[in-house]
């Protein structure tokens, strides 16, 4: 009942194609944005900002990137970690070697470099698809991981291999506290999410989905498969690269190649699968879910009075993740996003039974 669409007629194609065609959705989205920008900075404590909200945003950004590639264009990638590393190390080197460079420029350039690397490793998609392509992305993952840990130039010849990230400066303002960093991340992620949404509801999104659904047939309407796939790799890596740069600069405070290993790639892939393949909203939901799950898992047994050590905790995580992946693939391949949609449809009638 609350969610009735009755009376909401679209009088123009523009209204029909809006991001939030239903009024209640639009109100909800604006409310969430308002809370995120105006309320959270004052209400949330440092722990929440530092370890939950900011990483959530960064993960969401990486998930959007991977979702564009895997969910919309159908190209499975296990190289997310590697591309995040590219973004992180590019940003680091730019900031160190060109001091005073505007942080937005740094991030943009990091994204662009990651996009170029993405195109390079996307070239095999001309000849191969499915899990064959996934193996090629594994090559990217392992090679990039090795590159950043073995070539000293990237780490500015530091002896320990781990370097701390430089300060974030924009127009003379230092982003040093958790609140300012949170707001910076929020702005970047919000803008990029909006751009991604625009891409997927237009021609580029349709071309990607055509490639995903039947790339042979896509050719007959004039889509050039290689170009479309490489564009997907480029845009996806751009997003993932910026996520990596944010990860190093804003979250970790250090640029560490082991933060971008194969596990990270799997983590983001899980977010995309559980959140919903082919859904921008799903990227956010999946990121939240995977981020909060370990916290839940470590606290839940305590609630039942059962103590489990850290090793057992990790094992439990593995088991639960594995089960959830299989569960979602069987029950709802479109993930939480679809469950959300179904929930909204039920809201049309609730609280009435029919």
């Amino acid at each position, binding site marked *: 009942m609350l969610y009735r669409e009755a009376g909401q007629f679209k009088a123009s194609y523009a209204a029909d194609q809006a991001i939030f065609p239903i009024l209640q959705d639009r109100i909800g989205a604006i409310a969430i944005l308002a809370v995120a920008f105006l309320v959270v900075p004052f209400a949330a404590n440092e722990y929440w900002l530092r370890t939950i909200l900011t990483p959530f945003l960064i993960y969401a950004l990486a998930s959007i990137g991977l979702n564009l590639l895997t969910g919309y264009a*159908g190209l*499975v990638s296990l190289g997310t970690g590697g591309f995040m590393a590219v973004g992180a190390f590019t940003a680091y080197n730019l900031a160190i070697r060109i001091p005073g460079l505007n942080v937005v420029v740094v991030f943009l350039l990091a994204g662009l470099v990651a996009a170029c690397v993405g195109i390079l490793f996307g*070239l*095999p998609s*001309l*000849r*191969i698809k*499915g*899990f*064959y392509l*996934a*193996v*090629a992305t*594994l*090559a990217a993952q*392992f*090679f990039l*991981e*090795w590159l950043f*840990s*073995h*070539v000293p130039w990237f780490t500015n010849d530091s002896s320990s291999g781990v370097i701390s990230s430089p300060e974030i400066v924009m127009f003379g303002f230092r982003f040093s506290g958790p609140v300012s960093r949170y707001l910076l991340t929020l702005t970047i992620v919000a803008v990029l999410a909006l751009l991604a949404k625009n891409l997927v509801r237009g021609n580029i999104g349709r071309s990607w989905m055509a490639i995903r659904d039947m790339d*042979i*047939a896509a050719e007959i309407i004039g889509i050039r498969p290689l170009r479309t796939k490489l564009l997907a790799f480029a845009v996806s890596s751009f997003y993932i690269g910026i996520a990596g740069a944010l990860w190093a600069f804003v979250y970790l405070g250090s640029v560490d190649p082991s933060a971008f290993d194969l596990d990270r790639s*799997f983590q983001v*892939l899980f977010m995309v*699968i559980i959140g919903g393949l082919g859904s921008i909203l799903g990227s956010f939901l999946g990121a939240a879910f995977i981020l909060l799950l370990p916290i839940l898992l470590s606290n839940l047994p305590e609630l039942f009075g059962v103590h489990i050590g850290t*090793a*057992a905790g*990790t*094992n*439990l*995580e*593995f*088991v*639960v*993740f*594995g*089960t*959830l*992946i*299989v569960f979602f*693939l*069987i029950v709802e*391949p479109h993930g939480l996003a679809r469950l959300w949609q179904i929930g909204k449809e039920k809201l049309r009638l609730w609280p009435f039974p029919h």
Partner: protein
Amino acid sequence: MEFFFEVLIGGLLSGVMYSLVALGFVLIFKASGVFNFAQGAMVLFAALTFVGLLEHGFAIWAAAIATIVTMVVLAIVVERLVLRPLVNQEQIIMFMATIGIAYFLNGIGQAMWGADVHPLMLGIPQGPVDVLGIQIDKFDLIAAAVAGSLVAGLAFFFQKTRIGRALRAVADDHQAAMSVGIPLKQIWVIVWTAAGIVAFVAGIMWGSNLGVQFSVALVALKALPVLILGGFTSIPGAIVGGLLVGAGEKLSEVFLGPFVGGGIETWFAYMLAMLFLMVRPQGLFGERIIERV
């Protein structure tokens, strides 16, 4: 020159170990078209179970049988809970489901048997032996012999037996196989059991060599380039691919590694595979993938 041969032979023989893991992949792919990302986890799981039982005082033969039974149970569970519900989905979904299985197995295995390194003492002879002036490890020779007999056995099984034919039919076309009365579900259980047994053998060999530990599952990822080189549907291809990967890795690490700070082994195989994918996607022995509209 001798050094080169030693490295080469060492690489070839370590490649045989990769092949053992790759064989399991080929089995499942050949018979169900599913790319089983969890094969490595199965190797680890089998090895952990075996070692765990041994440490609890089981005799070798009892532990072996118990492990095989466990793998059969695993195959049945996987077929029932994962394969059957996903039977009509595309390959990519099945692939991602096997990633889920891999995580699950890793978690369960470690929860049951702990995460420490378990040394596996089976009395397999180790130590070098002199062949034509080159030092070769006895263990590696035995591994090669094991792999060779496994390949021969599997090839015979696929070509000559009734079940083997049924498996090939299922790989070609599920619907058609069902329509001639081949029981799909049983076939899948058989295949996954066979892969489980292959995983067990691989687990024994790897475990004896390295000790049974988590990195075994990661090493199994190396099997992917092996498959790409050899062809996903070819049993002899798994061997050849393994040899190429093993030799290539070792040679590049020893001769090229010093120039770039070492560690080439982590990615050499994948890069090689990627190049292969551009040039010959079906691998050396695989079937060409033809798509019809």
